[in-house]
């Protein structure tokens, strides 16, 4: 550290170039210059008509290299200040960027969206609560509430958690190799995009009129058993269940992995003690395993509830929100991007915030308790 008050042998041999003042001004200059160069390159890359692969590569180098360069320059720049200044500036360099980005991208926009929700489509005239009247009484929002809460939250989260728990518990009792294969298969969909998953499931739900070769798996099975083929995705109310099935297929793996780790952390002696007392496996699970992994169950459930309430991709790609499958996030997207009604879109976004608020508050309280020792 550069204290200046305790000259050491090594420092006295340095050139005058390395005095904090010179070094600081050089670094400041370098920072300003880098920002200028990065800005120019950005404009160049934005407007350039070069081969796509080159632009992509240049963009990656620009973004990753630029942010590293700026941090290095700034961090070394503040080191040149006397200790008293440094104490205030160093945290700013370390924590400042993250705090600024989060405020600019999450905290402020939330406030601005709240204000926007009281204005009309173009955000020009104050309309009071009109957008909220729409958000709570319009047909599509009422359908969305039903779908988000009944289907996505209740069925989607419920089945994902329960199936995840079942697989975790059962796989724990099988041969290790078998267990690993089962877990890999159930977990795999986590890596797939919801759009990709929707493509996969289109081939399961595809419907052709009776008498024609069925190319969708579900209808093929149904007709092979002597039933009539059905248009699964076009049947209002029930089609939601088929969309939720995709969600369960995607989320069960997440639940399973967390539960599996938690179950393996339950001490074997506890389970054995229960068995010695004459409990059967179901009782051991209900009275020993389950209470021990309560924390994990809670975390997984709240995490999946958040995903379920914000569900968008599956609905957008499977039905576009038609045939009674509308959800809140899709209404928000449609109002914002298809109808350009920013006021309504903002109100619907605030509704979405409101429905996840209980979980946010729960998480925050849990979290502030944990950081008390800070």
């Amino acid at each position, binding site marked *: 550290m550069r204290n200046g008050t305790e000259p050491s042998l090594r420092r006295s041999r340095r050139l005058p170039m390395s005095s904090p003042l010179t070094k600081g001004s050089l670094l400041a200059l370098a920072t300003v210059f880098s920002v200028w160069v990065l800005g120019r390159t950005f404009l160049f890359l934005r407007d350039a008509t070069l081969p796509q692969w080159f632009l992509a590569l240049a963009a990656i180098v620009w973004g990753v290299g630029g942010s590293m360069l700026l941090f290095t320059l700034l961090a070394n720049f503040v080191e040149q200040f006397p200790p008293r200044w440094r104490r205030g500036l160093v945290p700013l360099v370390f*924590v400042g960027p993250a705090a600024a980005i989060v405020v600019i991208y999450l905290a402020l926009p939330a406030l601005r969206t709240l204000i926007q929700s009281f204005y009309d489509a173009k955000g020009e005239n104050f309309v009071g609560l009109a957008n909220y009247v729409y958000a709570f009484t319009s047909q599509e929002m009422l359908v969305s509430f039903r779908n988000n809460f009944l289907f996505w939250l209740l069925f989607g989260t419920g089945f994902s958690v329960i199936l995840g728990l079942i697989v975790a518990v059962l796989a724990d009792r099988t041969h290790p190799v078998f267990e690993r294969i089962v877990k890999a298969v159930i977990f795999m969909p986590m890596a797939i995009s919801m759009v990709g998953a929707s493509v*996969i499931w289109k081939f399961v739900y595809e419907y052709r009129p009776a008498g024609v070769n069925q190319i969708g798996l579900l209808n093929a099975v149904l007709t092979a058993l002597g039933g009539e083929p059905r248009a699964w995705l076009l049947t209002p109310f029930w089609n939601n269940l088929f969309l939720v099935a995709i969600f369960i297929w995607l989320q069960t793996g997440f639940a399973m992995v967390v539960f599996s780790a938690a179950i393996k952390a339950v001490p074997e002696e506890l389970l054995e003690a229960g068995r010695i007392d004459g409990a059967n496996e179901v009782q051991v699970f209900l009275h020993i395993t389950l209470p021990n992994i309560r924390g994990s169950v809670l975390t997984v459930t709240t995490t999946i509830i958040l995903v379920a309430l914000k569900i968008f991709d599956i609905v957008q790609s499977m039905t576009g929100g038609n045939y009674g499958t509308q959800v809140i996030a899709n209404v928000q997207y449609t109002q914002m991007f298809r109808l350009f009604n920013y006021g309504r879109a903002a109100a619907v976004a605030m509704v979405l915030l409101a429905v996840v608020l209980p979980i946010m508050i729960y998480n925050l309280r849990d979290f502030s308790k944990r950081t008390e020792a800070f």
Partner: protein
Amino acid sequence: MSRNSPASVQRRKSHLTPGRILVYAILIFLVVIWITPTLGLLVSSFRPAEDVRSTGWWTVFTQQSEARFTLDNYRYALGLPVQGQVVNPRYKTVGLQNAILNSLAVAIPSTVIPILIAAIAAYGFAWIRFPGRRWLFILIVGLMSVPLQVSLIPILRDYIKIGLNGTYLGVWLAHTGFGLPLAVYLLYNYISTIPRDIFESAFIDGASHFTIFTRLILPLSTPALASFATFQFLWTWNDLLVALVFLSADSSTQVLTQRLLGLMGSFGQDWHLLTAGAFISMILPLTVFFLLQRYFVRGLTAGSVKE
């Protein structure tokens, strides 16, 4: 009490009782259900267009004599020349090669930039004392579950105003903003548990925070960095909403998920292309996922198991 002797424990683990057969049966049943849809898509992607349209994919197993396979779907999807066939001119616009590059150009910086910023911040929160530390930390991490929908409109309007709309930079910053709370949380959990004496000696030697961070903390935090990197890469590569909102202006910058959505909508009958396209979009995330699974799982279970 011979039932509870070690020998009986051993027996319960190795013998095939009806209960154990049931356990295996249930799991095999679930595995079949889980894997069949993906298998169907994989098989379909190697079948000729007319076969995909007219018969189910399982017929390649049930009527093996009539099964035909081709790589043409992948050739079309990747914009490669297809020999001996008149190419439907519409397919020329289908090529996903640009979309693959765009997905990479979006996902890689969107993963690296937040990691860098979050690691720096996590170090700051863990090892630099300053007033308001706790509240700032709670503010950042508390925003973790805010639906990003509340941010879209104001940011979109700002982007249009300053010319960031439709640019990669705009998408990177958006992904960075939405991913930072989780990143700071995960990395803080890890960095704050690094033993203090490791850097005490470095401090005494006169090292600056910058040196300690880059030379000591970053290398030591590799597992946590890898854990979050896997999350963020999967999230940004698979994302649809952020791409739709901030990239949709220009079809040349569209990413894979957007193109797949387009294929599903406008080319409903061109399923053979959709199959290949969907698989192309899955290869990279699946590879990353299985290579870094250890770190990914560690990230998933961090903090939720110990409570």
